[in-house]
Structure formats: C-alpha cells, structure tokens
C-alpha cells in the first residue's frame, strides 16, 4: 500500500524529497488539498494560507543543493497563539480577531530559516484555556476518529491537522497538557519540552511559568525533529537556559520505568488501564523494568495548577484593554473603554479564569491559595527529583478516558479534571511526551489512548527514545 504524500511522516518526506521521488510543490499541494477538503468538517484551521511560491521554490533549491535541514520544504501547522509576522494571531479569541503579528515568534523565525512551510493557523481553546477546543470563539475542532467527539485541547486544531494528515507536523503550546492531551485523543504524539528549552518569545502568554511551545507529530522521531528545530537559548526569553544547565543524561539501554500505582487506583477507565498495563508489559518483554514509585503530593497537583494558572492568566490577560491593538469597544470614559472591550472580547472561560485568578491573588486570600500553591509546587518538584533516583522515566496514562462527546463536560471542574495527569510536568517544568498506546471502543467506534512519560529536567531526549520503543520504531 502506498501512502499519499500528505500521509508521510516528516522523516519519510525528507527522505523522499532528497531522493527526488516528489517535489516540495507536490508535497505542499497534497497537504493543502487535504486541508481544504477536510477543514469544513473538522475545523482544524481558522485560516488556510495560500501557497508561498518563493518559499516553496527556495526550499526546493536548498534540497537539490544537498544542504537542507530536515524541515526544509515540510508543510506544518502553527497554533493560532504563535506569532507569524504579518499574519493574524488571535489565540481563537474575539479580542484579538483583528490582530496581525508585528514580529515572528523565535520558533517561527528559526523554522523560516530552515525552510519549513506553514499551511495555516490552527484552532484552539481561547487563549489555551480548555481541553476540548469547545472554548474557541470560532467553533470547535472535531476529532477525525469520531466527529461527534472533541479532539482535546487546547492545541486541538494542531492535533487534528496532524491526525487527519492535513500537515506532516504541527506546533502548539502546552501550559497544562495542551499538546499531550489532544495528541492522546487523536492518536498522535504530543511533546512538552523542559521549561526554558524553547523560547516563549512570540507566544501569546497564558501562564508564563508553565507555558512551553510544544510539538505534535506522527512519530516520536518526528517530534524530536520538530523540537530540535526550535530549541535553544534566546535573548528574548530570559527563562530559556544555556546548554549544561542541567546534568547530562545518557540514554539507557534498559529503561527503569517508574509507575506511581497509588495514582492509578481510581478514576481511570478499565480499558485505558488495560492498555497501560499491556504497554508496560511489552516494554518489560523488551528488557526494560517497571519500578513502583510514590508521588504522594501529586494528588494535589491539579488544585495547585488551577490556582497558579488562573493567577498568571489574569495577569497576562490584563494587557487586552482595547487601547493599543485588538478589539476596541468604546464607552464614555477610558475605564468604560477597558470594561466594554474586555466584556465583549473575552469568552466565558477567560472571564471565569480572570475572576478566579483575581480572587486567588487578592489580599486576604493570596497566602491561602497562591503562595501555598507555589510552595506545593516546590514539594512536587522535589518529590519527582527523588523518584528519578530509582527510575529514568515516569509513566501513567495521558488521560483517564478517551475523547469525550461535545457538551459532555459542561461544568468547569469536570473539564479541568481532563488535565489531571498532564499538569504536573508543567508545574515541575519537566519534559513529557504522550505516545499512542492502542485503542478502546466507545459506541462501536475505536478511539485512541495515550501513554504519558515524564523525564528529569533537561532529559528531553530520553522521551523520544522511550516513545519510539512503544511505537516500535528505531531511533
């Protein structure tokens, strides 16, 4: 069976371009056609870009010249909160619907230099707040495995674009699981780098101490290519770190996989648990070991996250006031301008989190909520550090259940619970990956599930290797 060009992985496409089996133009056309055909149904993209002839020709020349980076000529999707100069970047919010990026995000700049191509800007939950894309101001994306179900979020459009072969790879952002959770729900690979591994310059901020530009790909190897293309210290983001900041890690021949069994007793679908156990068994049969570990503070991770993230979001979203850019509603005073613009421009979930963030930061409550959460964050990190003394990576399912139906999680707490396993990596800053681990059946439809691995700070590369062991690739 021959794959269509848009169905190739980045690795396969890079090889095909170099052996002249097809051209950059043919690859672009295959993806652009698939995107155009499927987008009305899936709503993965808020905008599809016209072919950039100059970029396509120049990518072809570099490939023919024999010195092109791997992403040269590869069509990718960019989440709508990552700035591409001259393009709209709305974060799927009405308040930024008319905002045109005045500069390239550092990641985008690097990708342009490497000759990567952008198919369009991908749909998301407004400002990254959500786990389903139902909070997009421009309608939700749909899961290609079952269009009555959500694709996950917030980088749902990016995940759908990859899963439905509209692009070969995509970038998203991950503040609490926003690349890993939709990847799990759509059957692709989602990666969140170590905090500070990739520049946040040019990302529309949600929770600044949690945000990272993340990768969504068809294979762990592709995720590594996407990550390598954007990683590195950046003078425009002081939280990016220099090489050598974290201890060097050797990729072990035999992995010790830590499993916190005490976190897996309740609240996980039986068949998801079965997939996890089967995946761990098959890793054991390859010579890796499963080590029981304990992470007692992890049961507080989600409450900690839903204090810190709204706190940071309420501060970051204070800048949208209708004065300098974006939606500008007018009242009879400057204050009325702010209030009207924000009331009109923000959807329900941003408003909810702005109010919640304002509450946990208000005098009288800041000690009990924000400061305690910040301290708990330190405890969580110390606990993970201690666990990593007996294991190389930590494994659990990415989500407790497969993709849910639209409207199923209408109360906020049930939606927040989608992130129960993924938020800890953002709180600790540690890198994490979600890799497909087989399907489960719901209403007669097979839905994908994901296994989630966390590695120590700076040990991002371990995750592509363990991911490839799960998918049976060589890396």
């Amino acid at each position, binding site marked *: 069976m021959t794959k269509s060009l848009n169905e190739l992985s980045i690795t396969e496409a890079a090889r095909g371009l170099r052996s002249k089996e097809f051209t950059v133009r043919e690859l672009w056309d295959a993806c652009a056609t698939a995107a155009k055909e499927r987008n009305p149904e899936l709503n993965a993209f808020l905008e599809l870009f016209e072919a950039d002839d100059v970029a396509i020709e120049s990518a072809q020349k570099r490939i023919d010249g024999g010195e092109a980076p791997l992403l040269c000529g590869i069509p990718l999707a960019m989440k709508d909160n990552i700035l591409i100069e001259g393009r709209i970047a709305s974060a799927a919010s009405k308040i930024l619907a008319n905002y045109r990026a005045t500069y390239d995000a550092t990641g985008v700049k690097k990708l342009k230099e490497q000759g990567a191509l952008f198919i369009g800007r991908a749909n998301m939950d407004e400002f990254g707040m959500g786990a389903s894309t139902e909070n997009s101001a421009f309608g939700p994306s749909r899961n290609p495995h079952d269009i009555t179900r959500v694709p996950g979020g917030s980088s749902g459009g990016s995940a759908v674009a990859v899963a439905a072969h509209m692009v070969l790879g995509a970038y998203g952002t991950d503040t609490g699981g926003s690349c890993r959770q939709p990847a799990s729900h759509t059957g692709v690979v989602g990666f969140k780098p170590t905090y500070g591994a990739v520049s946040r310059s040019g990302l529309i901020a949600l929770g600044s101490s949690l945000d990272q530009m993340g990768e969504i790909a068809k294979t762990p190897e592709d995720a590594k290519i996407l990550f390598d293309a954007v990683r590195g210290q950046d003078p425009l983001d002081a939280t990016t770190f220099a090489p050598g900041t974290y201890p060097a890690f050797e990729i072990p021949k035999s992995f010790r996989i830590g499993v916190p069994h005490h976190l897996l007793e309740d609240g996980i679908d039986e068949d998801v648990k079965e997939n996890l156990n089967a995946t761990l068994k098959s890793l054991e049969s390859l010579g890796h070991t499963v080590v029981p570990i304990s992470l007692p503070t992890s049961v507080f991770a*989600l409450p900690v996250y839903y204090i810190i993230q709204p706190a940071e979001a309420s501060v970051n979203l204070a800048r949208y006031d209708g004065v300098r*850019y974006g939606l500008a509603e007018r009242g009879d005073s400057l204050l009325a301008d702010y209030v009207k613009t924000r009331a009109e421009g923000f959807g329900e979930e941003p408003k*909810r989190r702005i*109010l919640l963030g304002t509450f946990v930061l208000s005098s009288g409550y800041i000690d009990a*909520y924000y400061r305690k959460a910040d*301290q708990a964050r*330190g405890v969580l990190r*110390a606990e993970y550090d201690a666990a990593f003394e007996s294991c190389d990576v930590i494994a659990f399912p990415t989500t407790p259940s497969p993709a849910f139906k639209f409207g199923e999680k209408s109360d906020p*707490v049930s939606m927040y619970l989608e992130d129960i396993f993924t938020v800890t990596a953002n709180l600790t800053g540690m890198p994490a990956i979600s890799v497909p681990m087989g399907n489960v059946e719901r209403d007669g439809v097979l839905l994908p599930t994901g296994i989630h691995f966390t590695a120590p700070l700076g040990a991002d590369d371990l995750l592509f290797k363990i991911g490839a062991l799960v998918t049976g690739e060589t890396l």
Partner: protein
Amino acid sequence: MSDMKATTKDVKRLATLARVDVDDADLTRFATEFDSILAYVGKLDELTLPESGRNLSVVRNVLRADEAPYESGTWTQRIVEQFPAKEGNSLSVKKIINHD
C-alpha cells in the same frame, strides 16, 4: 478556606477589580461555579508542607546589557498599524483626568 461560599456580590467585586463587565445571569452562574471550583482547589488545605518545602522554588536572575537591543524605529510602522486610534505615529486615548 474550602467552606467559603461565593456570592454574586463577591463575583461582581472581582469583576470590577479585573475590569470586566459580567451581566447578572452570568454573575449568578459564576458564583455557583466558583463554589465548586473553590471546593476543588481548596483540597490544598489538606496538604501539610514540610518545613524544607517552603523554599524550594528555583530562582535565578537573568540580566542583559543596558543598551538598545535594536535601532530606534525598526518596529514603529508595524506597531502603529495596530493602533485602534492614532494621530500620525501617536496613539490616541481618552482624557484620563476630568475636572468636572
């Protein structure tokens, strides 16, 4: 803290602080939702922090040279184009101080 009940008055006050208008129907709904959200995040109450856990956040200072990072005017045009109201390259805003 987990037994706190949010009232519509509380939510209205937060909305004023956050400079966002919330209509009456939303005020009632947000107040109800806040109860369940605060009950959930209030679980944190049950966590006893170890003494050593109080100063575990890792902070490092990052400074850059005190100099102009780019030539003046490089970004002006692109930024000005985004202004909702302008005069030349200046951003127009409403008068802040009123004497009446």
